């Protein structure tokens, strides 16, 4: 599904990713763990096409398509979704309007029919209820004045509504209390399916108690330095990242 090959990327003149290779097959959840500054967020921005994150070598494909040749919105239309570590505020645009516009833009790009307003609202109500999001909050401008936890919950709301095929969760647990973490994780787990895959980026093992990974990778110094099963996360929690320091 997602295949990253010898990826090198430069941010502000500094090489952050230094030959990262990773395969995430459909149906699997992979976790990327690593110390601060290892390049975890850089990886998520390179994959989604943020400007200022320049690939100098290597590549990445999603279902065989060259991801790096596509505009950010084209990547989204092909099913790539990033849950941001720090979701942006969009003043003046009600959350529901935003999500509906995004969903329809993706559908149009894929040659599908737009979703009607009643159909969209019906689904939005159901998803909001499942994520314990007050429906009135969805009428407010997206993320404006929301707490850190509310923003993260809105990311998951958008994710569920947009039904992406490949999900990247960037430090989704930060800013969440235990109850919110459980709700958010349930939302994520409900999306697990044989034709989807996920990359869960996290500094701490805590999130992986709720979203159980099939594989765990350690990212340090811009490349994957160790890979293993879920037990690797527990090991890291006990020993720390010191032995992987670049």
């Amino acid at each position, binding site marked *: 599904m997602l295949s990253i090959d010898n990826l090198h990327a430069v941010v502000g003149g500094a090489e952050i990713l230094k030959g990262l290779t990773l395969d995430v097959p459909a149906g699997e959840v992979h976790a990327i763990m690593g110390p601060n500054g290892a390049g975890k967020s850089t990886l998520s921005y390179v994959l989604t096409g943020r400007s200022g994150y320049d690939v100098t070598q290597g590549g990445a494909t999603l279902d065989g398509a060259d991801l790096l040749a596509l505009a*950010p919105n084209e990547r989204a239309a092909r099913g790539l979704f990033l849950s941001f570590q720090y979701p942006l505020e969009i003043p003046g*645009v009600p959350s529901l309007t935003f999500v509906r516009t995004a969903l329809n833009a993706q559908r149009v790009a894929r040659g599908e029919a737009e979703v009607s307003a009643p159909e969209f609202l019906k689904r939005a109500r159901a998803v909001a209820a499942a994520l314990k999001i007050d429906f009135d909050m969805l009428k407010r401008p997206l993320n404006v004045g929301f707490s850190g936890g509310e923003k993260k919950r809105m990311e998951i709301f958008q994710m569920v509504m947009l039904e992406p095929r490949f999900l990247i969760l960037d430090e989704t647990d930060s800013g969440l209390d235990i109850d919110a973490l459980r709700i958010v994780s349930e939302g994520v787990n409900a999306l697990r399916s044989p034709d989807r895959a996920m990359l869960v980026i996290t500094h701490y093992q805590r999130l992986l108690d709720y979203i159980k990974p099939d594989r765990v990778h350690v990212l340090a110094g811009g490349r994957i330095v160790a890979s293993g099963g879920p037990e690797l996360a527990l090991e890291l929690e006990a020993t720390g990242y010191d032995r992987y320091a670049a």
Partner: protein
Amino acid sequence: MMLARAIAEQDVAHLPGRRDEAWKYTDLRGALRAVPGPSPRGVAPVGLGPLGAVEADHAITFVNGRCDGEGSFEARAGETATFRLRFVSQAEETSHQAAFAVTVQAGATLTLLETYEGSGSAYLANVNLDIWLAEGASLERIVVLEEPDDAVSVSSAEVELSAESAYAQTVLTRGARLQRHETRLHHPGGGATVRIDGVYLLGARRHADLTTVVTHEGVGGVTSQLTKGVARDQARGVFQGKIVVSHGADRTDARMGHHALLLTDGAEIDAKPELEIYADDVSCAHGNTVGALDEDALFYMRQRGLPEAQARAMLMQAFLGEVTDRIAHEGARHAAQAWAAAELGALS
């Protein structure tokens, strides 16, 4: 007044220019080598103009400074009405001017739909309005300016309020070669409220100048001002907002905001917010920002699937929406929102 005299006497020496502090960004003297000759009689245009979608009870149209009715309008005490006032320019390298008075009697509620519609080219137009609100009167004034690239046009209003009256104004413009919309408002305090807003959307080499002077002269006056603009290419937006709180105008509550987006490097915004306070115990604030669209927000929106142009348009519409949302008259609000959306479409 200087402009009125220049046109009346066909004498360029009376034109205000950059040596006049209030006109330094809108230099009429520098722009015009001579005052163009008088405009001919025009023909009343077909249709109802840019706010035609909003129904009106009364209408007066000026064409090239001549009007089809009286030179004044009065909303009678207790009346609720909508009045359409159009200033049409159909002129080629000529000049014209008009004066008009609007009175809103005690307890009356008036919606004023005021439009400036230009066809032809290189004309010089000047309009002077006198607006008076009696006690407890309410006026909401929506102004739309649609004039050619090469027109020079100035519109000024003197507004006089009485106690307990409510004045609200939203000016929407896409500029001209040189265009200025000026409002001088005397605020008596005493429970009177003022909202004084503007939107400018400028491309090419267009220039729009929104100048306001609100003078608080009594105790307890409220003023809320919000102006937003977008400029690209070599366009120039000018905002001069002045709030004076006179001696004794205690407990005045005045807020002024001006925020502009520069879409390209060649565009320019000149902002001059001024608070002049001579009273005690007042609450005054102003905020002024000029910047580009938030690139991080744009990336976030694109990550969710919005094409770049759509994301930009959505951010800009939301940005301007904070101004047009403040229009109370529902029909006028929808018309203003539609106008801004269409102009933004033309800009992006």
